[in-house]
């Protein structure tokens, strides 16, 4: 009889407590994974957009072949990247090429007045924002997840079931960390 009481008073609440923390941790880990996949979704969106931009701008910018080549090359490298480090390097290059392109656009007032180009430009601006917001959201999730894993009492559960810390999204050099600043003088 006393053992039954001990089970009821100590073991059951403890088990419920551990189950609760475990489930919360799994939920958080899934959120982190989901945030990571969001970044990929937005990078894919950027890749899909590039042929559009090149097509729209090409006719107006005959003398900027080098800029277009840099963009197309970086895009195909990014799409063909095998490892994470390769991908992040290629994406960085692509970002740089795009921001260079947007600087050059300033010299072509005809292009800037083209309705189709304005539409594509808005999509590009939004895509670059989405990429940086997706990274930001991923880092927020990772911070919260890592805190949970390291803090008492959830750290005990995390250690028992071997939840491991996640890495923040960081880029090696500072220039790559800066998502290309997309800014337009018109609308």
């Amino acid at each position, binding site marked *: 009889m006393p053992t039954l009481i001990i089970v009821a008073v100590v073991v059951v609440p403890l088990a419920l407590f551990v189950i609760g923390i475990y489930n919360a941790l799994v939920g958080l880990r899934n*959120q982190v994974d989901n*945030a990571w996949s*969001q970044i990929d979704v*937005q990078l894919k969106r950027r890749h899909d957009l590039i042929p559009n931009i090149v097509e729209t701008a090409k006719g107006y910018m005959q003398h900027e072949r080098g800029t277009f080549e840099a963009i197309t090359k970086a895009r195909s490298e990014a799409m063909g990247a095998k490892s994470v480090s390769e991908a992040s390097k290629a994406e960085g290059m692509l970002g740089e090429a795009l921001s260079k392109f947007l600087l050059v656009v300033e010299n072509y007032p005809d292009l800037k007045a083209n309705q189709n180009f304005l*539409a594509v430009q*808005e*999509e590009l*601006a*939004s895509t670059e*924002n*989405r990429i*940086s*917001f*997706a990274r*930001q*959201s991923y880092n*927020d*999730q990772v*911070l*919260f997840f890592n*805190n949970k894993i390291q803090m008492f009492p959830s750290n005990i559960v995390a250690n028992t079931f071997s939840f491991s810390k996640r890495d923040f999204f960081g880029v090696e050099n500072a220039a790559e960390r800066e998502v290309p*600043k*997309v*800014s*337009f*003088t*018109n*609308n």
Partner: protein
Amino acid sequence: MWELIRANKRNSIILMVLMAAVLLVLGYIIGAAFAGQDAGFIGLIVATAIWFILAIVSLSSGDQILLRTSKAVEVTHADHPQLFNIVEEMKIAAGLPAMPKVYIIPDPAPNAFATGRSPQSASVAVTAGLLGRLNRDELQGVIAHEMSHILHRDILYVTIAGIMLGSIVLISQVFLRSMFYSSMGSRRRYSSGGKGAGQGQLIMLAIAILAAILAPIMAQLLYFALSRKREYLADAGAARLTRYPEGLASALEKIAGDASPQLAAANQVTAPMYIVNPFKKADAMQLSDLTSTHPPISERIKILRSMGSGVSFKDYSDSFTQVTHRKTIVPPAALTKEDIALRQAGEEARDKQRRETQMRQVGDIMRQVNLFVFLTCLCGLKLKIPPNFKSDKVQCPRCKRILDLYPPAPI
């Protein structure tokens, strides 16, 4: 961020319990005053029933009612790419599980609101006037503010608190009015009869009248305090989501300095839902009063602008105490150290011409969602034809060409 949401939940529950207690006590006292001490619990049940019915109605279809009364029109990416993109950017930044519906309100007064019970089924509405005045960064700040309301579950709590306020006001009004009329006829005292209807009943009556006068005022003050605090926190959330407090600050400045007439569809109940108080009559003195749903705009702008180099909740909280000299409104759990830097502004020309084209575009969007037909004549003139135009041919006013309203589809 998640600490804040949890603290929010806790505070809101405490507040709701407080308001529910006011409601139940009021119901009991009024019941007892009407029909003797024993009938107190009947009043209690009536009060609960009123609250329950109002709650079911406004929680099941409150967002639809709000959107419909403000004549909001749902738009897609095709109607206004920039607005739609910005909402989606903020959805990503906030990590919301679903994309909110986007609405435009055809009103020249610049304002915006968010509605919906949960982050899964939320809506964001902005007025045409807002779209016409703000640049991309500013619009992003406003949308981020609304997104923070959704993320913090503010809409649910404000709605529930609003329902309780409504029930309390309703019950008190009914009681006071019936008291007024029955004392005119002076028949009530006999009909309530019974042997207990002596001094005890009279005292109960006095207490009930006092409660019926005080309870709505107390509930209202609680409600306003809740609403103001939510606005500050949504501002803090917006700064954190966009990493750019100046966007929202400058948007608020533009909205405050706007001269167009006040929003037609707003009323006392829906006021807390908007980003700024839709009522213009209130002057600066009244705005800082206890009886305002929104903090003074100038104060909100000042806090956002003195945030310095970081955009975490801690930075907002520090700036808040520095500007207002009051205790911070951010729950302590959310004040963890976060190292989040500002981002840079997008450059945009703010010349007059751009504003004019922007205003014209907004007009076109409104016509498009209202089923106007657009025709471009060969002479370059753009014709905008309302949906109730009967004929299927129209003459161009400039070159007198006859245009087909519904040109045959190319083969």
